[in-house]
């Protein structure tokens, strides 16, 4: 319909230049960061060699890769533990954030009364709160989950609340005119309208949830029995096992990237049919 593919018509020089620039940019977007990254890794390797830095201070990239392979059982087992906390935390954050947002949307009074508490929870550094959690919660998993949840739920709550409230006034009138119930208005109007906002919050919350899970484990690490990537890092730090430390670090940041890409993909899939933010080519 409105979306038409560019036709193979003869182009004037200006348009041809524009097209070439677009193509170059499309390729450069991927090639450039990868090239820079490779260059940096190569440089890192050279620095180790040139300065004869011992491996317990700065391992060569090859050694890190090797450790990633030899310690795979240990590291990926820990990764799984961290992932479990991250995604459970994110799930709870979604349930809690959306649930509270829907509750807030029921009445301005509820929102005015309780939103400040959510803000307080958000602005207080989790590291400072953790000792309290440590006292009141026994179960290790529950502790970590609670941390991941506290860190991740706020962007979902605030974004979804904003979305539920930013509905076209005329549409609200239309629903009222057609005798819609509160429930119908929520289900057929407010929730779909809030979807882009919610997904924006989810994108942030995914990363935060990982941060929450790792930070919580760090703080809890001294008290023992955890087995996620954070405790691998602490352990490796004590033992001056820098290659493993780097390997664990790489796994964490790689996980963060994958989570971000996942959330972006979900967002794109959900919104691609209707929302402006999902429109790339046309216009």
């Amino acid at each position, binding site marked *: 319909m409105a979306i038409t593919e560019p036709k193979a018509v003869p182009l004037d020089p200006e348009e041809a230049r524009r097209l070439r620039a677009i193509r170059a940019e499309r390729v450069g977007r991927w090639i450039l960061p990868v090239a820079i990254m490779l260059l940096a890794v190569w440089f890192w390797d050279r620095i180790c060699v040139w300065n004869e830095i011992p491996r317990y201070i700065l391992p060569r990239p090859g050694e890190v890769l090797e450790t990633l392979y030899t310690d795979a059982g240990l590291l990926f087992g820990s990764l799984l533990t961290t992932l479990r906390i991250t995604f459970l935390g994110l799930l709870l954050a979604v349930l809690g954030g959306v649930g509270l947002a829907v509750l807030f949307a029921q009445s301005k009074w509820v929102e005015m009364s309780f939103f400040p508490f959510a803000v307080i929870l958000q602005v207080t550094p989790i590291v400072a709160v953790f000792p309290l959690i440590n006292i009141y919660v026994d179960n290790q998993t529950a502790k970590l989950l609670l941390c991941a949840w506290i860190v991740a739920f706020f962007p979902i709550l605030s974004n979804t609340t904003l979305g539920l409230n930013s509905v076209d006034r005329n549409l609200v009138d239309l629903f009222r*005119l057609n005798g819609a119930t509160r429930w119908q208005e929520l289900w057929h109007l407010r929730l779909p309208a809030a979807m882009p906002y919610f997904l924006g919050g989810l994108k942030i919350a995914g990363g935060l949830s990982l941060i929450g899970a790792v930070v919580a484990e760090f703080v809890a690490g001294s008290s023992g029995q955890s087995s996620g990537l954070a405790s691998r890092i602490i352990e490796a730090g004590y033992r001056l096992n820098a290659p493993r430390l780097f390997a664990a670090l790489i796994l964490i940041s790689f996980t963060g990237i994958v989570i971000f890409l996942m959330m972006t993909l979900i967002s794109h899939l959900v919104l691609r049919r209707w929302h402006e933010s999902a429109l790339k080519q046309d216009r």
Partner: protein
Amino acid sequence: MLQDKPAETAQGQGEGASPLLVLRDVGKSFSNGVAALRAVNLTIREGDFLSLLGPSGCGKSTALRLIAGLSTPTTGVIDWRGTGLKGSADIGFVFQEPTLLPWASVFDNIWLPLRLRGVSRAKASPVIREMIERVRLTGFEEAMPRELSGGMKMRVSIARGLVTKPRLLLMDEPFAALDEITRFRLNNDLLELWQDERFTVVFVTHSVFESVFLSNRIVVMAARPGRVFREIAVDAPYPRDEVFRTSSAYAALCREASGVLGEAITLGGSVHGDH
């Protein structure tokens, strides 16, 4: 939904038709002190195509919202004569913007009013398809709003307003944002729909030409406070088409309406001082 439509309604000939809705001394003041409407008396008759014509800010939208029951009058009453039917259930509303659900297809957007009344998709399907055909959108059932032009979106909005077969259709400057060619086409199609389906229309516009082309009654309003200034009867017979649009009768009527509107505007302006 179709049952009690009086078949004998003399469309476009106000005199004999029975009143559908009477506004008696209706006034509306907002909490910010704006008197949007004062002492409006107006009888809307079954089968009317009534235009509210006036400068912006004279309370046209406010009047529509009062009629729709989206807002309550400060003074006066809105009297529904039609078989005890109270307000919204029997009213279609078309806004200035298409205000479609961006996440729903054309079909689902038109389904919405029926859906909110508990009618399933399958059950509503024949009526929706008929409406889509009536507004000339066949083939676009599954298109999303963002894929449509402004005129097509407005067609969806009209179909959605009419899908419940309301007796009264309220339209608030529905074509104001469209280009002239699209507007002419939609005017023609709207008139055709109106003649076939025999609903009553209250049409808000600030275009003299549009109001003359469409309506059998033009109610010219003045501002500050918003009020009825004068009513103009448009006697030209229906169906009206491109021939009418270029006729001298049309030109004369436009001149008359323009004159009245001009008077209404100067009057509104002169009261400006004590606002």
